[in-house]
């Protein structure tokens, strides 16, 4: 079982470096990462990415044109393009987030055969770096705080381009899981910081 991570970025190389490094020090190595730049990248961003060229599990793509909308259109495109087995999981996240070193281990260890989605609590910058208890509801869950089974994520798709489209995507994934008798599981640990 692999966790496939999709990161949409736009010229924030230092922050992106922290995100990538937070995965390089994960206790569980079962992940890979696709970094998608929203339009052509700056030289500084390309230089940063070159630091990771020895890692086959990290791929970098510059989308030919900038699509903006908080990166949502690129999430939609690359969620469908990413290669994953049905039992794999997919995390979509931002370039300025931070994950604790045990994130992948705890999330994947929590997966049972019928798990469709797993979510964890968030330390959130919008709430002055206090705890956001995650719930699968619009405005109660943030992109980056949940992983979705690969086949579920692809069928549901990341459809919307408005600000809180991440919440809608989570809700639709959970509804689809329910139809397939898959569960939404909760990891009761603070393993994600949303900046």
């Amino acid at each position, binding site marked *: 079982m692999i966790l496939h991570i999709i990161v949409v970025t736009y010229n924030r190389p230092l922050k992106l470096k922290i995100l990538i*490094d937070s995965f*390089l020090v994960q206790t569980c190595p079962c992940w890979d990462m696709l970094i998608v730049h929203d339009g052509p990248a700056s030289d500084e961003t390309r230089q940063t990415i070159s630091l990771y060229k020895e890692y086959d599990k990290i791929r970098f793509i510059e989308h030919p044109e900038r699509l903006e909308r908080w990166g949502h259109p690129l999430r939609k495109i690359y969620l469908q393009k990413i290669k994953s087995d049905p039992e794999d999981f997919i995390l979509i996240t931002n370039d300025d987030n931070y994950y*604790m070193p*045990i994130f992948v281990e*705890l999330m994947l260890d929590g997966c049972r055969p019928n798990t469709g989605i797993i979510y964890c609590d968030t*330390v959130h910058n919008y709430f002055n*770096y*206090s705890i956001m208890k995650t719930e699968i509801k619009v405005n109660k869950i943030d992109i980056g705080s949940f992983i979705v089974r690969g086949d579920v994520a692809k069928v549901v798709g990341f459809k919307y381009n408005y600000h809180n489209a991440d919440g809608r995507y989570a809700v639709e994934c959970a509804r689809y899981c329910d139809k397939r008798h898959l569960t939404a599981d909760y990891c009761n640990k*603070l393993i994600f910081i949303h*900046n």
Partner: protein
Amino acid sequence: MLHVIITAYHRSVPLRIMVNSFLVQTCPEWKIYIIHDGPMPKEVKKIIEQFKNDKRISFMETAKRTGYWGHKNRNMILQILPDNTNDFVLMTNDDNYYVPVFVEEITKIIRPDTGMIHWDMIHSNYEFFPTRVGMGTIDMGSFIVRLPLAKKVGFIHTGIEADCQYAMECLEECKKENLSELHVPKILFVHN
């Protein structure tokens, strides 16, 4: 100015996260001093190389490993910092992470009579850890101390709880000098 003393030992990528978490701070009023316990291996040197052009970051290594969780090295750097009354010192480890508003949040509440500030954290069991000064309730990296006061107290203990002892002694000294202790009820720090 916030002086940040980072003790390091053979952990390259975590150290890069730690330093980068300061490079993306919203407030630039900080300086970092990395002290490696014993000669740096090449992986750590490679990481350090990435920061060599930033004058806010200095690094050194001891000739031999001293052990004791780097505590002796902390005191060595502490005692050579300038005696600036308005400055504060943070001692932390090479595998920690600070949120981007950390320096801004703590510096904006400093008053002339502030001796010490602490904030909440996520601890290595990845649960919320509300910080207060006491044995087992505060950790290295979760508090800053006014520099002259920190130097006067000194980081003199070498046991596993030396950070708590140092925090408690700093608080005692604050009381003697009529300086206040402040708490920021925000999660500004991850102790890995």
